[in-house]
């Protein structure tokens, strides 16, 4: 058959074309954390380590921001324990972190000092090493402040900013780096004054928060939070300051990813934060939630091929401002986990019909709650407590923990819990999964 194919160029071309077309529908075999860049290698078994980017607390331990390794290997004598921590010196408002596309390095940032810390997680995945510090982010980016999220692209890192050096509001940009840490380009968020070709629904505030890509549709989604002048201020003061409350994001945007050109700015009031894109091969939508208005929003492609944003449900009682923060979408696109900071609750929504989320479960994890990470099979969930140093609760409500659970489809069951204050570590924020088997 192959020989016959080979005797005719047209057929041969068709064979290649067929192969290309067929391989376009790959079978996904992954068991990694959901909600990560699709460009990275994936863990196909269980995670072995959870890396926790942790804010330092003055007078607690060494007082510095640090990357903490928690052992979650099955059968390990140190399962559920902290087995390593590497401090970066000083407090930088540790927040988010993520891997490069080759998954050899973890980039982690400080929202206050705008420094980026690069850890080698390949050489010894149990003991990440700080190998590089980028301390000229503001200068090389042209005035972006508060490097926030990291999103792996082939050979590059996409860094979403939160603020700017000029006025410290939420006006900001996306910044691209090579994996080696060289600045490539800065893309400022579209504004009313400079929409850069985008259609604006109501307003283009130029604010930023998350940035995620759906390669199949060549689109990127961005959301909006607030600037340095708010996130580095006591939350109680911010909430009582009417002018400060006006300086929260009220937009999400869809971009042409390949050209990095914004196409449309949606009006999504109340600070839309994390973006979670559906994985299904025909699921052309993403979820986000609004911190101040406690709503689930769906960004979706309509029948005409246009992207739209629509509020599709409430989270708890919005009047009580539960403050939804991190979210996690299951790999089958059926369950959306939503953490809310103020009431310490996690709620699971059935989002089989993305236009009609139905809450199916809730549990209070602690007195305050922020981040959630789930395994690809949906069976293991991890939670941490800290939002932002000046926004965390005070006194006894200021619990700082990592808690691990198993999910059996109806109940979250305890696996282990770590008290980051008792361990003199600090305020745990984002979690990322590691595995030594990635590098063998």
């Amino acid at each position, binding site marked *: 058959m192959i020989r016959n194919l080979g005797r005719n160029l047209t057929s041969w071309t068709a064979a290649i074309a067929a192969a*290309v077309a067929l*391989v376009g529908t790959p079978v996904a075999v992954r068991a990694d954390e959901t909600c990560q860049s699709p460009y990275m290698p994936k863990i196909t078994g269980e995670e072995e380590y959870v890396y926790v980017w942790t804010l330092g607390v003055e007078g607690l331990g060494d007082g510095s921001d640090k990357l903490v390794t928690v052992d979650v290997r099955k059968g390990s004598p140190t399962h559920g324990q902290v087995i390593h921590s590497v401090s970066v010196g000083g407090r930088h408002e540790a927040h988010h972190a993520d891997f490069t596309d080759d998954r050899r390095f973890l980039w982690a940032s400080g929202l206050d000092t705008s420094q980026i810390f690069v850890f080698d997680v390949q050489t010894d995945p149990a003991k990440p090493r700080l190998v590089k510090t980028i301390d000229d982010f503001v200068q090389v980016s042209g005035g972006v402040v508060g490097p926030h999220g990291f999103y792996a692209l*082939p050979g590059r890192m996409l860094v979403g900013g939160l603020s700017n050096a000029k006025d410290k509001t939420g006006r900001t940009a996306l910044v691209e780096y090579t*994996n080696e840490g060289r600045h*490539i380009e800065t893309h400022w968020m579209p504004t009313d004054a400079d929409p850069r070709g985008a259609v604006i629904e109501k307003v283009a505030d130029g604010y930023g928060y998350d940035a995620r890509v759906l390669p199949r549709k060549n689109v990127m989604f961005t959301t909006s939070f607030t600037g340095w002048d708010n996130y580095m201020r006591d939350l109680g003061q911010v909430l009582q300051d009417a002018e400060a409350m006006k300086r929260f994001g009220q937009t999400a945007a869809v971009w042409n990813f390949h050209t990095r050109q914004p196409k449309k700015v949606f009006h999504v009031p109340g600070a839309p934060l994390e973006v979670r894109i559906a994985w299904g091969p025909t699921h052309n939508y993403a979820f986000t939630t609004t911190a101040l208005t406690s709503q689930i929003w769906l960004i979706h492609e309509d029948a005409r091929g246009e992207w739209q944003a629509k509020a599709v449900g409430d989270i708890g009682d919005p009047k009580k401002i539960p403050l939804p923060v991190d979210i996690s979408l299951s790999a089958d696109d059926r369950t959306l986990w939503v953490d809310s900071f103020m009431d310490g609750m996690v709620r699971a929504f059935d989002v089989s019909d993305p236009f009609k989320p139905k809450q199916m479960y809730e549990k209070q994890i602690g007195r305050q709650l922020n981040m959630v990470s789930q395994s690809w099979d949906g069976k293991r969930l991890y939670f941490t407590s800290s939002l932002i140093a000046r926004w965390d609760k005070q006194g006894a409500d200021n619990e700082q923990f990592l808690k691990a659970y198993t999910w059996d489809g109806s109940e979250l069951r305890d696996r282990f819990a770590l008290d980051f204050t008792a361990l003199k570590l600090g305020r745990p924020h984002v979690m990322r999964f590691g595995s030594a088997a990635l590098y063998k």
Partner: protein
Amino acid sequence: MTTRTQSGARRAASRALALVAVLSVWGGAVAPLAWGHGGPHGPAASVRSAVVEAEDQLRARSARFDFDPPRPGSYRLPVVKPAADGAVLDASGRPRRLGEVLAGRVVVLSFIYTRCSDANGCPLATAVLYQLHAATAADPELARQLKLVTLSFDPGHDTPEAMVRYSRVAPPRDTRSAWEFLTTASDRQLAPILAGYGQRVQRPAGAPAAGPTHLLRVYLIDRQQRIRNIYGLDFLDPRLLLADVRTLLQEDRETRR
């Protein structure tokens, strides 16, 4: 527990597809026969037919790339970093510098190893380069300005002779662009090239026959030998590559004015 790189992730499921791609690409006597002896319709008809098919594919949306590619020149491609140089061997075994191979044209560079059986890996990259190559047959200017380069990262197996066999994917140059097939003399010569491009390759411990695992990477390089884009599996769309190549060519024309 097992892990796989992006390109190796679907190996088992895609073995049959890989066979199609690899053997189609490899098929030894395949392309020269078709191009050298056109039969009753002559080579010109075969060329036209192949070009029409390739061009059709370059226009069509697919489930994998469900969008219209951007108009060339309607966007900028930033400089990512310098394209690394290094010592290579061409398919005749002649030692050359990679920088010399890259000189003078816009280049699409693909790292592969010829034993790769992952349909989402090297065969896919080579098939996409084939589509670009076919597209240049209908565009003499593109054919003159573009060069395709396939470089093996498996020098222990991919000798110059192996690259000659693999190169039969590329029909002899008629009106198409140049396409060079390179390897290196040793892992030692290869290492700085891989490091310079950031092409990750791992050789599984204890299983040398299995071949290296790697992240699928294709690089777009301008005439100044600077990397202007890097493509992984999720963006290895020949329509995007073609739009990017034409964007660089338009940039060149504007610079010369």
